[in-house]
């Protein structure tokens, strides 16, 4: 499974790590829905740390699309909301 962290690049993550990632991802989603900024920061930080720890970086010249994409490390909750709803946030 290939996971991209925006601003950092792509990682190949073993499928066995999926359960843990999904768990954190659900926490992230709940935090965004509730507008809970501290919970959002915790979940995002945990998710990114997990991907970095479990995954191995893909060589930069790969042209494979990712299966999952994660927001930037310093994203605000507002940015993530826009990322989910508004295609305009991604230029090009």
């Amino acid at each position, binding site marked *: 499974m290939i996971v991209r962290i925006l*601003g950092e690049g792509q990682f190949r993550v073993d499928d066995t790590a999926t359960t843990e*990632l999904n768990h954190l*991802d659900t926490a992230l989603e709940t935090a965004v829905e509730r507008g809970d900024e501290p919970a959002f920061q915790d979940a995002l930080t945990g998710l990114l740390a997990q991907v970095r720890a479990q995954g191995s970086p893909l060589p930069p*010249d790969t*042209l494979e699309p990712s299966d999952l994409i994660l927001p930037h490390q310093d994203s605000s909750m507002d940015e993530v909301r826009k990322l989910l709803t508004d295609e305009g*946030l*991604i230029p090009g």
Partner: protein
Amino acid sequence: MGVMKRVQLVFKAKANKALDKMEDPRETLDYSYQRQLELLTKVRRGVADVATSRKRVELQMNQLQQQANKLDDQARKALGLGREDLARDALTRKSSAQSQLNDLQGQYAQLQAEEEKLTVASQRLQAKVDAFRTRKETIKATYTAAEAQTRINEAFSGISEEMGDVGMAIQRAEDKTAQMQARAGAIDELMASGALDDVGGRRDDIQAELDQLSANSDVESELRRLRGEIAASAPKQLEGSGPNGDAQVANGGQSQAQSAPYAPPAPTQNPQNTQNPQQAAQPAGIPVSDLPSANDQPQDGEG
């Protein structure tokens, strides 16, 4: 569906939309490659812009540091001349310059981080664009039209995602740089006007009052420091000079002399200087009968 999948789908939809617009597969490859080269130029320009901004902040930080040093110097001189009001004014401005400087240091670190991120992003994009160019030529030469379409879609999705990512990185860097430049412009104006104490106009009243309190205590502690330094430079001239010499010791001037980081040169060229610092440090209740015009300075004790 979680956040990770939803973001991925948004990116994918973007790529598909671009693909759908193309009728001829070759057109897709060439057009996309063109866009990639444009983005590469853009991200490199982005790196240069951030670097320019960072250098400007660096320059301002140097100017503010010089300003703070100058004001410190002025305060010392003013106090040496017995003009505590002027010293107070200079130290207030110094405190303001110092807080601007602290702010800039934080912004500087942010710009530096942004520059590094963009540099890495530009390298990653370069690697992917090179890979895409190779793939493009292979697809054009080898495959049948049907096969080509599948391979093109794969290559295109991969690079399109990277381009979206890099595009966002550029946008973020531009936003940060714009903020920084607006700020730098404001500080330039502030420095040009020489009114470094007139900051904080947009803050709320409580914040302004808190800032004022903190600035006041900064000024007080700076005044104490300068008094200590001046007292420390004086004792050699004052040794054995009678009751006033003893008053100097009681004043606590000696205890600070050990740790004072700055020892101005003894003012031997100007004999009356040995009187002035003493006068400035004179606590209330010291016999002043031998000082000229003592009755004209009742405010000295309250300071």
